[in-house]
């Protein structure tokens, strides 16, 4: 067999279509029979809907239907938490359409379905909407002061407090140095190049719904949609096509993921909705808006003894499907790769009249990494220690693993760092940027820019969560079809998983085809998030490949009159000890489809270090990244 493909720089197979503009993103699916949906969204951050009159809009030629909460039937369904669900969060789930109250600019109020998107947009202007404004809760301070309540029945805008605990951070630390400060991180949003979009078809005769535009976790979305629509899960197909960027935002269940399929079934017509950029910025998950007051407690020699403090998450208007993750992570991952024996961090999660938030590129870790690394710089300054020396002194060593990290309240799960050499990544990072050479530039003003150099260390979770599934099928053409639950979110999944498949089977990549991310391919599957698809989907494929090769050996043994373990497998061939040979293609009818599954419910943590050299123009605030 040739050198393994895994580890080789392979030119990606998906590039061949994407470079030619021949990919198929959701809006590229030809659907001339589809109606177009557009959504009336709240122009106010907070208020009570006092009038919603769709009569004039309904009369516009080309308008087929205008769907409101009344069409769906009140109370309308809400969107459940996909990750870390808790009973106490249920009251804050987002309804799929506003009923009597709007809580953020962009909240869906009505959906117009028409023969073209242009006509549907014309009709939006004819809907008569009146909203009696309520005070808008914008900041965490506003939310705490509670001049208005987003959910009056709850009596507070505090949705939940997550606590992270390790050891006893409340104890006295005689003679210790306390470094403390306030921190904040601003809101971000994914702004994927391709906006969201869906195409739903209802087959009334079969009672079957097909939804194109699924991504990330199609099986979970199907389960939620089935429950909301009162359908059997297997009456719904979620189809994934090319995806123009995920970043954690795409593929979670949003209001439109109910509204568009609902409309298709309600009208018995295909319905397509393509988000426009303004809608994307208003309605797709935001992220990152935290503030914190934290104390880092150190011995005079520079050993971290404890951290304690409080972070606050500006959640936005609802607790969306994956919104619990960032506030949990801010508390749990403050310690990062460092030895901090005593931890007490609480994260208050506040409801505000902003777009709801969700996961985005290292949710919660980006925020808490900044808080921690800044505190370490402040501590180094206070102690008169070198910043790198202080960090290296406190990094967890390989010998100290497994090392526990803080446990977060609800749902409780003990976590540990099981392996790694954190000091090595720090050293390599400093070497790569030329840390020593850059030190004299720190604080210098050169050509109007003040130079700064900094380094930080981090851990990043991944490769865990629900089981992933795969199935391999040998065809009579000698090709092996690879079916996997992992979904493509623009990350090059097809090439990676085919590299793994080809190595496992000893076949060239050209002899394999990959089918991924649609519920039609596997009865059970999961998807791509939490940096998991290579490990989870790839290992499910490896397990399936073992089963497939056993089946090929068994079939070849019968054909070649030898025991299965005497069969030597080559690239698409099977040989017996006397040299008789049969091609896999000839065995296809005797080789059943091979399922594979991989489970890893233990969180594992990758790690790294990052250094930057920047120049800040004090007059304009412009930051230039030099390295």
């Amino acid at each position, binding site marked *: 067999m040739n050198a393994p493909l895994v580890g080789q720089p392979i*030119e990606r197979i998906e590039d061949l279509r994407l470079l030619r*503009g021949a990919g198929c993103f959701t809006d590229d699916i030809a659907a001339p029979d589809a109606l177009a949906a557009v959504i009336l969204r709240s122009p106010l951050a907070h208020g009570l809907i006092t009038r919603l009159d769709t009569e004039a809009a309904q009369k516009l030629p080309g308008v087929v239907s205008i769907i409101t909460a009344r069409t769906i039937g009140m109370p309308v369904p809400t969107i459940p938490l996909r990750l870390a669900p808790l009973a106490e969060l249920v009251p804050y789930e987002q309804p799929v359409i506003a009923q009597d109250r709007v809580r953020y600019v962009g909240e869906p109020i009505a959906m117009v379905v028409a023969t073209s998107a242009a006509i549907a947009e014309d009709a939006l202007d004819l809907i008569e909407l009146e909203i009696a404004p309520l005070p808008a809760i914008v900041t965490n301070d506003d939310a705490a002061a509670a001049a208005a309540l987003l959910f009056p029945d709850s009596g507070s805008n505090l949705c939940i407090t997550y606590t992270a605990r390790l050891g006893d951070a409340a104890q006295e630390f005689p003679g210790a140095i306390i470094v403390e400060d306030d921190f904040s991180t601003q809101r971000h949003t*994914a702004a*994927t*190049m*391709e906006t969201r979009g869906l195409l739903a078809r209802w087959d009334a005769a079969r009672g079957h719904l097909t939804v194109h535009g699924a991504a990330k976790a199609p099986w979970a979305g199907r389960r939620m949609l089935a429950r909301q629509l009162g359908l059997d899960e297997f009456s719904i197909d979620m189809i994934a096509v090319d*995806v123009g960027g995920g970043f954690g935002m795409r593929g979670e269940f949003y209001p439109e993921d109910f509204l568009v399929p609902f409309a298709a079934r309600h009208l018995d017509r295909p319905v397509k909705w393509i988000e426009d950029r303004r809608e994307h910025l208003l309605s797709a998950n935001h992220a990152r808006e935290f503030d914190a007051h934290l104390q880092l407690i150190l011995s005079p020699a520079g050993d971290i003894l404890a951290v304690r403090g409080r972070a606050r998450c500006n959640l936005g208007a609802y607790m969306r499907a994956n919104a619990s993750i960032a506030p949990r992570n801010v508390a749990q991952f403050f310690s990062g790769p460092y030895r901090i024996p005593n931890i007490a961090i609480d994260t208050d999660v506040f409801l505000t009249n902003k777009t709801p938030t969700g996961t985005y590129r290292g949710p919660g870790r980006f925020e808490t990494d900044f808080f921690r690394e800044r505190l370490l710089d402040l501590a180094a300054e206070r102690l008169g220690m070198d910043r790198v020396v202080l960090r290296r002194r406190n990094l967890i060593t390989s010998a100290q693993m497994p090392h526990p990290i803080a446990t977060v309240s609800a749902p409780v799960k003990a976590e540990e760092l099981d392996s790694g050499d954190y000091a090595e990544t720090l050293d390599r990072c400093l070497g790569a940027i030329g840390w020593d050479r850059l030190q004299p530039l720190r604080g210098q003003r050169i050509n109007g820019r003040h130079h700064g150099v900094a380094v930080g260390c981090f851990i990043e979770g991944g490769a865990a969560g629900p089981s992933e599934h795969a199935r391999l099928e040998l065809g009579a053409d000698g090709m092996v079809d690879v079916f996997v639950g992992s979904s493509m979110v623009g990350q090059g999944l097809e090439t990676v998983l085919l590299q793994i498949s080809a190595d496992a089977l000893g076949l060239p990549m050209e002899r394999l085809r990959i089918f991924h991310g649609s519920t039609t391919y596997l009865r059970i599957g999961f998807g791509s998030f939490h940096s998991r698809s290579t490990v989870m989907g790839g290992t499910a494929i490896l397990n399936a490949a073992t089963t497939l090769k056993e089946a090929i050996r068994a079939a070849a043994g019968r054909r070649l009159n030898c025991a299965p373990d005497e069969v030597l497998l080559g690239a698409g061939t099977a040989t017996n000890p006397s040299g008789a040979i049969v091609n896999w293609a000839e065995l296809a009818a005797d080789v059943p489809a091979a399922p594979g599954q991989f489970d890893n419910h233990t969180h594992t943590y990758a790690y790294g270090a990052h250094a930057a050299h920047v120049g800040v123009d004090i007059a304009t605030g412009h930051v230039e990244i030099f390295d």
Partner: protein
Amino acid sequence: MPTLPIDCTVNGAATHLDVAPRTILADALRQDLGLTGTHVGCAHGSCGACTILLDGAAVRSCLMLAVQAAGHAITTIEGLSNPDALTPLQAAFRKHGALQCGFCTPGMIVTAHALLSANPDADADTIRDMLSGNLCRCTGYISIIEAVLDARAAYQEARA
């Protein structure tokens, strides 16, 4: 909605379209002609994904009405591609890992093609300036600049 007839050339073929006056060129290309390689990322002229060639110049098809294309020659990513082999720019993008999700890529290729056709010797600063109107959210831009620099040789040869 009444339509207006227009005649233009699209990827070398004489093309007749009947379009509503308010239809943007990007929508006409995608919906009426099925040329879905031209992607609409923002419809505001901000992202560059919908870039096409209009008489050889890189323009945003979301900022033009389809009726304005009457009498002009349009080239889309499909017109810059062939099924047999990747073009030098496409091959360079692949080699340098200059794409991930691929949604911005047609606009990048079309813009870079316009630049290198006019100036095969473009330096990194010129390339960076030309591509500054094309947004990518996945790769960052370094690999894209490297790919365009690498593709220059083929355009220099074509000139010679």
